C-alpha cells in the first residue's frame, strides 16, 4: 500500500515538473513554434502523469473518468496546437510585430 | 472565514481593476473586456456571499446562484451586442 502511495506521489511530482518546465518554456522561448512545443509537452505528458498518479489513489471509476479527460485534452491539444501553428505560419508579420512591442 | 474575506477582497479588487481598464482604455475592445472584468468581480462577490451558509454547514444560497446565472447571460448578451457594434464600426472605418 505504502509503495503504491509512494509511486503515486512520485508520478505526481514528475507530472508537476513537466508543467513547470512547460510554463517556463512558454514564458522564455523566443517564437511561437518553440512555445507550442513546450506547452504541448506539459499538456500531454504532465497531465498524463498526474492522471496516472491520482488514479493510483482512487477508485477505478474515477480513474476511468480521469483517463477520458486526459484523452480529450490530448486530442483537443493536438488540434489546437496545429491550428495555432498554422495561424502563426500564415501570418509571420503578426508575431513579428508583437515581439517589437 | 479567512478564505471568505480573501474572496470578498479579491472580488472588490477585480471591480477596481476593471474600473481602471474601463477608464484607461485606450481601445474600445479593452473597455468591453474591462466591463466584463467588473462584471466578473461583482458576480464573484455574490457567489462569495452565497458561500456564507456553507461555513455554518448549510447548503449555499441558491437564490444568489440563480441571480448570478441570470447576470451571466445578460452580461454575455450585452458583450455580444457591443462587439457586433464595434466590429461594424471598425470595418466601416477602413
Amino acid at each position, binding site marked *: 500500500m505504502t509503495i503504491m502511495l509512494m509511486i503515486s506521489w512520485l508520478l505526481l511530482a514528475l507530472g508537476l515538473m513537466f508543467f513547470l518546465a512547460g510554463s517556463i518554456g512558454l514564458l522564455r522561448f523566443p517564437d511561437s513554434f518553440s512555445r507550442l512545443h513546450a506547452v504541448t509537452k506539459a499538456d500531454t505528458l504532465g497531465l498524463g502523469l498526474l492522471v496516472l498518479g491520482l488514479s493510483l489513489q482512487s477508485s477505478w471509476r474515477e480513474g476511468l473518468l480521469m483517463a477520458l479527460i486526459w484523452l480529450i485534452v490530448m486530442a483537443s491539444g493536438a488540434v489546437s496546437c496545429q491550428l495555432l501553428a498554422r495561424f502563426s505560419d500564415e501570418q509571420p508579420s503578426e508575431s513579428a510585430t508583437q515581439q517589437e512591442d | 472565514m479567512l478564505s471568505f474575506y480573501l474572496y470578498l477582497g479579491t472580488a472588490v479588487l477585480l471591480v*477596481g481593476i476593471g474600473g481602471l481598464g474601463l477608464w484607461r482604455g485606450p481601445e474600445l475592445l479593452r473597455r*468591453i473586456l474591462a466591463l466584463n472584468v467588473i462584471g466578473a468581480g461583482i458576480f464573484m462577490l455574490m457567489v462569495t456571499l452565497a458561500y456564507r451558509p456553507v461555513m455554518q454547514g448549510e447548503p449555499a444560497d441558491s437564490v444568489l446562484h440563480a441571480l448570478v446565472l441570470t447576470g451571466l447571460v445578460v452580461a454575455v448578451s450585452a458583450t455580444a451586442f457591443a462587439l457586433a457594434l464595434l*466590429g461594424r464600426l471598425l470595418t466601416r472605418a477602413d
Partner: protein
Amino acid sequence: MALLLFDLVLCALLLLLAGAAMLSRSLTQAVTLFIAFGVMMALAWARLKAPDLALAEAAIGAGLTGALCFTALVRYAKQPAYPQPALWRPLTFIGLVTALLLASLSQIPLQPSSAIPALVQQHLPQSGVSHPVTAVLLNFRAWDTLLELLVLLLALLGARQAPGDLPRYRGWSLSISWSRLLSPLLLLVSGYLLWRGAAAPGGAFQAGALLASGLVILRLNQQLSWLSWRHFWVRMLVLGGLLAFVLAGAVSLLLQDLGAVWLSWPQSIAGAVILIVESFATLAIAVTLTLLVVGEPKPEVADA
C-alpha cells in the same frame, strides 16, 4: 491550511490575470489573458460551492465571450496602434474608490440574516424540480428568466442591425475531422446537462451554451449550412424559448382559477412545464449564441 493556500494562489492568479489583461500592450494578449481569467474564475466558483455557475462560466464566460472577442480582434488587425495613456490619475481615483468599498465590506454580516435559503428548501417539493437553482430560475423567479431570454434575443436583434463581414475561414482537414468527432460528444453532454438540471447542477443555460459551442465549431468547419434569420425555422428556434415560456404562462393561467397569478405552475404539472420550457430555451439559447458568434451570410453567399 492547504485549502487556504489554494485560495491564496487562486486569488493572486485571478488578480494578476485581470490586471495583465487590462494593462498589456497588445490586444491579442489582453484577450488571451482574459480567457485564461475566465477559466480561473470557473475554478474559483467551483471552489465556492457553486457548480452551476462554474459550468456556466466555463462555457459562457470563458468560451463564448472569448470566441466573440477573437472575432472582434480580427477586425482590429488593420487599426493603427493606440498611444498608451497615463496611469496615475485613474489609478489614484480608482484606488480610493476601491479602498472605500473594501472598508464598507467589513460590515457584511458573517451570519446572513436571510430567511431565503430556508424558504427555498421549504418550497422545493412544490416547485416540480429537486435542484434549488433550477427551481429559483424557472419557478420562484421565472419572470426574471423570461426577461433574461428577452435580453439575449435583443442582443441578436441589435447585432443584426450592425452586420460586419469577416474574412472567411475555410476549414482544414484536421479541424474538420476533429469537429466531426467533438460535436456529437457536445450534443450528448448538453442533452445530459439539460436533463440533469432538474435534480443536480446543470440546466438550460449551461446546456444551451455547450450546444452553441458545438454548433459554432461545426459552422466554422463548414459542416453545417448557414443559419440565416431569413429561414422560418431558424426564427422559430430562436423565438421558441420565449414563446414556450409565454404559452406555458398563459396555459397555466387558464388551467387554474381566475385568481391565479402570472407564471405560477400548477404543482402536479410543474416538473413537465419546467422541462418543456427548458428544452425550448436550450435550443433558443444555442441558436442565438451561435448566430451571435458566427454571424449571418450576406444574401448572395446564402443563395450560392
